[in-house]
């Protein structure tokens, strides 16, 4: 079943107010082209989730698309903090539900397996659990292990409306391969009602069948497949292209105040028609070619 479409159409399938699971890990394989298109289309009121908050979440928050964020903290590694997210938390405009990496991963895992709840040893004895109980009340509970009588914290499954996955290779049905570590991506796709794939390369199903062990997202989970090179720019895509340090630094600087970030959005999001326009804006093929990954190093 051919699910190939444009980024604009895929994004348009997401109603305001949806729960969207985002694929990025601080500055790698972030759904940046997706985030820019969501802001361009004016989608609002999103709940976002991901194990470790990344640049895709920060941009969406800064772009005014988000009311709620479920994650286990986050940063832009040495480039800086998640300025938009942190500002949202500090001024109270963003409802942040903070966990740890594993507790979000276990919530996705429970969602992916149709489990009603998931026990975990994390969070206990911390202010995280105190804050989660104060803020959400109903997403964690205490339970008695019927086998030992021990007390366990249990988490409610996460069931996003849609997961966005930035993958290396997919066929038109949505069978997808990811190179490098996969962090929470596979559990996100399986926990979500449906998945939108943004693939560097769309290949024939024949190619997928040659090494079907590599298929980490089966096509039956996927609603849309978008072929879009450099969709994670300025973050990296392992074995495809490196992060663009200058563009990330420009972003971090821009996010330091709401005013400067508005100017950034005007230039890089609203000021271009689409992803192709964005790529031209940041230097076009000549510049992007300098980010091309070495096949042995992968960056």
């Amino acid at each position, binding site marked *: 079943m051919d699910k190939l479409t444009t980024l604009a159409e895929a994004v348009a399938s997401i109603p305001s107010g949806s729960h969207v699971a985002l694929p990025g890990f601080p500055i790698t394989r972030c759904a940046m082209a997706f985030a820019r298109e969501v802001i361009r289309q004016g989608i609002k009121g999103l709940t976002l989730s991901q194990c470790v908050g990344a640049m895709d979440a920060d941009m969406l928050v800064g772009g005014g698309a988000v009311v709620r964020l479920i994650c286990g903290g986050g940063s832009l*590694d040495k480039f800086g903090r998640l300025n938009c997210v942190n500002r949202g938390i500090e001024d109270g405009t963003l409802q942040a539900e903070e966990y740890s990496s594993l507790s979000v991963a276990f919530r996705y895992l429970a969602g992916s397996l149709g489990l009603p709840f998931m026990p975990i040893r994390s969070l206990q004895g911390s202010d995280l659990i105190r804050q989660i109980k104060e803020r959400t009340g109903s997403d964690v509970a205490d339970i008695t292990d019927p086998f030992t009588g021990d007390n366990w914290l249990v988490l409610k499954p996460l069931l996003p409306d849609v997961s966005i996955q930035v993958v290396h290779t997919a066929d038109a049905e949505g069978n997808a391969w990811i190179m490098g570590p996969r962090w929470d991506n596979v559990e996100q796709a399986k926990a979500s009602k449906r998945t939108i794939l943004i693939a560097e390369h769309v290949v024939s199903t024949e190619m997928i069948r040659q090494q079907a062990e590599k298929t980490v997202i089966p096509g039956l989970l996927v609603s849309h497949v978008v072929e879009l090179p450099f969709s994670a720019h300025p973050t990296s895509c392992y074995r495809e292209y490196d992060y663009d340090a200058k563009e990330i630094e420009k972003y971090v600087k821009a996010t330091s105040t709401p005013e400067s970030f508005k100017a950034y959005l005007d230039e890089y999001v609203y000021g271009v028609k689409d992803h192709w326009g964005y790529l031209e804006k940041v230097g076009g093929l000549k510049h992007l070619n300098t980010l091309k990954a070495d096949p042995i190093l992968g960056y």
Partner: protein
Amino acid sequence: MDFDYNPSELMAAAGAREIKDREVVAVGLGLPVVASFLAKQTHAPNMTMLFELGVIDPEPVHAGVGLADPRVWHRAKVLSSFVDILGSILHKGRVDVGFLGGLETDQYGNLNTTLVGDPRGKFRHMVGSGGANDIASSAKRTIIIMRHDARKLKKTISFVTSPGYVTGGDSRAKAGMSGGPSRVITDKAIFGFHPETKQMMVISIHPGNTIEDVVGTMGFAPVVPKKVPFTEPPEKEQLRIIREVIDPRKMYMG
């Protein structure tokens, strides 16, 4: 080569010494990465290094800007997922050492990486937990590396992101966790924890410091044994590996 060393180099060397060969080590950001690679390249060639996002035993040839940098994943033996690393290795109970940095710690080794006060008396939100809370909850022991400063070693920290011995005594066990912090390594001293009260306790002082330098710059009073030795300085070979192999561009040890 210059055999003088800076405090970061001493902290990395001291951290490396805490790791035994064949141990499984979950590593956080920053100095813990340097200390772990140093151990692996010296006395602990058979240790296993884990990064939470799904990376086991990489052999980087370039320093990275953080765990999200593919430079840090280079030549890994396993590339998998959070559920694999933090679930089936850490939560399963197979991690011997969790190696963490922090913004603030209290006398029970509880760590804060979430909120810090700013000069206007407001809180700034920082990086939060990532896998640090999970590592602190499930590793058999944790080693903490952080700067020595009364604004960082505090009686009451702003937020407990990653539990140490909670409120001391057996409170950690009562919260359902075994393990706990074994060492806190700062740029002035190495601390352990009192076996009963679980209060931080001076183990050794770095050369060039006095006990007053150490205790006078803390926001709480650590247990001080009668005799406190000096910390062993980094070995030549450790310094060479840090400077030439692990961090030639001084990205970690700036």
